[in-house]
């Protein structure tokens, strides 16, 4: 026994040492291959069948090759043919197949009877789900049933969910967890350009001279893309500027790290615009030809109360009015508020202002999980529009995604309450268009959106929603102010169905647990951050009675009497669904590549026109949808012009005060993917990061006599939690701020976070609430 522990511990440490070196090497030499290490797990003499797939984890959408033998996935390596990652993988990607084989994989449906779960057959479980849905609709109305899905849904999963609930049952109670991470990016794009998703692509990295990371810890969250930035620095001497509230691995690798006080990015962004105009760096010709100016409502509130509603009222303004508005945002005024020096504000503005520099902005949760998230998205677009640094190779404002198909499924299929695959439910023509393809009466699709995610869980608590089907997501870890929503879901008279691959805190609240087929155990497609749709075939049999989420939904739809609409055959349903889905996006603005193209190459970017992916939208040189005869055409807006928005600074919903004097921000770590339900079952990743912690500023820790490992109690107005301290370890928060990762279901930080959200996008702000910090 002693020897065994010795060997395991030593080998584990060696493995960690090798992984650290591989990660560093990968950052320096993107595409570097250590075949010996990567193929170590492959059985000797194995005759592997290698097939391509997009990675299961984040929204970068790395291409991977999966080696299977005798019905088991035994190896994974980066796909050198993929233009996304060029053969590279991050630490999670290299271990992705191990997530298929956790010991507690769900293989049989479980039905709760008298407080305990009883195994049943899939057919019986699906019968029960269908009958409960029917019963709930009869007793409480159509809007009493809801589905809550995910950016990990494949495109067919989300498509059939939307078709069933919106088209057939007739409720807009369709939401997905991307509301918690990407909804703000959507409203940012829609308000500024009228169409969602980035205009550029990852290839911009090869052309940009300066990279601005807006509250974006790319080194941990998107390590493969970050390695491409570092590679460009080695090759071309590009600059990386990290603009954040906390010092991270990204800050340490950046050429310049600039810290700002939480929420004040709004003011700093406006100060950059002020400087651009004041110094004559504005691209006048571009702005005059391609931009309008608008302002919206202010003091919108924070959505803290049930039934909160907000609709912006845009009002056109002119350049002079916008310029006058910016007078409040001189670097001198903003420096005091933001903690960013005048010199640093001018330094940032000068990078945008230099006509010889191409600039790429990246952001993710820092800007999106923000109580004024749509505004800060608009402000970053303002900077790019004012300087004309947009829609050309290397000039690219680029919002990154955290899930493999947040774009492909949630944003493009439209699995949000107000959305349809093409357009929105509020638009009669869009409803008619969807109804025709779905083969349902147009009256079936309600014209009003119902609940966004936070309000959906509030409705469940109130009893307005009685039945909720949750697929491939873990809201009982991720919802802010979690306790309310957990207690609400457990109330009498609620029926919860959860489809997943492992037990989670969300399956704990379920009445029925359906075992799902994971990733390459079924066929599907994901859509990544750069509008790239990638196909994967079924490579493995799912365990036990596990079934794809798509087919679970189809089976229930048929039981509800919608055989006509769900005509798909089991053997060919993914192809049939994708072909039907493509019809929603026909045309030069969003055409999707045919399935045979997706099967033959590592994905294709929409709009896919005349056999080609479109790399830079709105630029007539690259985008066949441009039709105004000019260099650029922002065709998402009726007059073809993008909007520069007047958006002020406003404080966060809850700021530190005498009782709760620290800021609390939450986030992720490189080892774990989101709530850790998969990566915590991969031993090497779990051992590398076994539990959550609270990061403190070293000065605060010293004053409070707290050392790494000491227990620290965090208290907010929602509750308290105790975690081990981390001082001067991976990340270093600014003074009077603490950071906690949310991956650990045993230390649920969201029990104490606040459910404030951006009034426009309805996306919660997980980065800012007030907290009291004490040594426990």
């Amino acid at each position, binding site marked *: 026994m002693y020897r065994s522990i010795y060997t395991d511990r030593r080998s584990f440490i060696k493995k960690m*040492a090798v992984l650290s070196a591989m990660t560093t090497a990968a950052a320096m030499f993107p595409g*570097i*291959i250590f075949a010996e290490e990567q193929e170590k797990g492959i059985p000797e003499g194995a005759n592997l069948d290698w097939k391509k797939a997009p990675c299961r984890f984040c929204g970068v959408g790395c291409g991977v090759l999966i080696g299977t033998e005798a019905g088991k996935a035994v190896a994974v390596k980066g796909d050198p043919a993929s233009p996304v990652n060029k053969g590279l993988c991050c630490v999670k990607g290299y271990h992705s197949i191990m997530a298929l084989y956790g010991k507690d994989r769900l293989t049989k449906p479980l039905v709760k009877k008298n407080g305990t779960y009883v195994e049943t057959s899939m057919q019986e479980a699906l019968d029960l789900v269908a009958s409960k849905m029917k019963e709930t609709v009869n007793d409480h109305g159509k809007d009493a049933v809801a589905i809550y899905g995910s950016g990990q849904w494949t495109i067919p999963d989300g498509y059939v969910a939307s078709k069933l609930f919106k088209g057939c049952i007739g409720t807009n109670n369709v939401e997905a967890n991307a509301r918690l991470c990407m909804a703000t990016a959507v409203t940012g794009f829609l308000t500024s350009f009228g169409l969602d998703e980035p205009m550029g692509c990852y290839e911009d990295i090869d052309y940009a001279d300066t990279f601005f990371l807006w509250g974006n810890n790319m080194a941990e969250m998107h390590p493969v893309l970050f390695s491409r930035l570092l590679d460009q620095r080695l090759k071309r001497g590009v600059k990386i500027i990290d603009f954040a509230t906390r010092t991270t691995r990204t800050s340490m690798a950046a050429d310049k790290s600039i810290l700002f006080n939480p929420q004040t990015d709004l003011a700093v962004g406006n100060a950059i615009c002020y400087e651009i105009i004041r110094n004559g760096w504005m691209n006048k010709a571009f702005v005059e030809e391609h931009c309008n100016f608008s302002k919206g409502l202010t003091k919108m509130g924070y959505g803290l109360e049930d039934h909160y509603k907000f609709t912006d009222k845009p009002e056109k303004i002119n350049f002079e009015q916008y310029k006058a508005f910016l007078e409040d945002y001189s670097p001198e005024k903003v420096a005091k508020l933001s903690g960013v020096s005048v010199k640093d504000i001018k330094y940032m503005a000068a990078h945008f202002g230099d006509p010889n520099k191409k600039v790429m902005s990246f952001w993710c949760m820092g800007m999106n999980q923000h109580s004024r998230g749509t505004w800060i998205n608009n402000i970053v677009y303002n900077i790019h529009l004012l300087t004309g640094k947009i829609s050309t190779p290397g000039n690219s404002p680029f919002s990154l995604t955290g899930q493999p198909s947040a774009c492909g499924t949630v944003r493009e299929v439209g699995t949000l309450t107000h959305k349809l695959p093409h357009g929105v439910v509020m638009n009669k023509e869009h409803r008619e268009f969807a109804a025709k393809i779905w083969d349902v009466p147009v009256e079936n699709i309600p014209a009003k959106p119902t609940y966004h995610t936070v309000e959906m869980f509030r409705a469940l608590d109130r009893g307005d929603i009685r039945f909720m089907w949750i697929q491939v997501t873990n809201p009982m870890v991720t919802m802010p102010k979690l306790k309310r929503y957990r207690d609400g879901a457990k109330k009498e008279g609620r029926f919860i169905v959860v489809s997943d691959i492992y037990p989670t805190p969300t399956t704990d609240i379920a009445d029925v647990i359906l075992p799902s087929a994971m990733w390459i155990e079924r066929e599907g497609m994901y859509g990544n951050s750069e509008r790239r749709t990638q196909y994967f075939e079924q490579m493995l049999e799912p365990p036990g009675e596990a079934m794809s989420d798509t087919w679970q939904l189809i089976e229930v739809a048929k039981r509800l009497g919608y055989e006509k609409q769900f005509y798909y055959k089991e053997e060919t349903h993914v192809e049939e669904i994708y072909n039907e889905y493509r019809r929603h996006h026909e045309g030069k603005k969003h055409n999707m590549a045919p399935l045979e193209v997706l099967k033959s190459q590592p994905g294709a970017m929409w709009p896919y026109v005349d056999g080609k992916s479109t790399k830079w939208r709105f630029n007539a040189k690259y985008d066949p949808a441009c039709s105004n005869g000019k260099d650029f055409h922002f065709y998402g807006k009726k007059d073809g012009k993008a909007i520069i928005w007047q958006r002020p600074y406003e404080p966060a919903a809850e700021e530190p005060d005498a009782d709760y004097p620290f800021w609390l921000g939450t986030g992720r770590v490189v080892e774990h993917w989101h709530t850790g339900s998969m990566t915590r079952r991969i031993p090497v990743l779990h051992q590398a990061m076994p539990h959550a912690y609270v990061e403190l500023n070293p000065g605060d820790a010293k004053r409070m006599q707290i050392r790494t490992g000491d227990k620290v109690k965090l208290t907010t107005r929602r509750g308290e939690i105790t975690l081990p301290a981390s001082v001067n370890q991976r990340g270093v928060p600014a003074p009077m701020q603490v950071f906690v990762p949310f991956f650990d279901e045993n230390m649920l930080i969201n029990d104490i976070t606040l459910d404030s959200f951006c009034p426009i996008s309805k996306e919660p702000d997980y980065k800012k609430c007030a907290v009291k910090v004490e040594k426990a």
Partner: protein
Amino acid sequence: MPIKSYLAHPHTGKKEYLIEALSNIEACEVLPANNEDVLILVTETNNKQEEDILKEKLERIPSLKLLAMVSGFETPKNE
């Protein structure tokens, strides 16, 4: 018992020599990249003294251009 990992950069055209030289040292494990001129070196020694001796030995390898430490772990002897 220190375990350390390094990125070892060979002089131009000397990658194979470097792999051979490092592989011949008992405390060293080598993992060469297949498509770049760099290799991962993992060293495992019993104590600081052995570590220092090894370091000197490494510095004398003619094909080694640069050794950059990436991670270091100090594990107790009884583990």
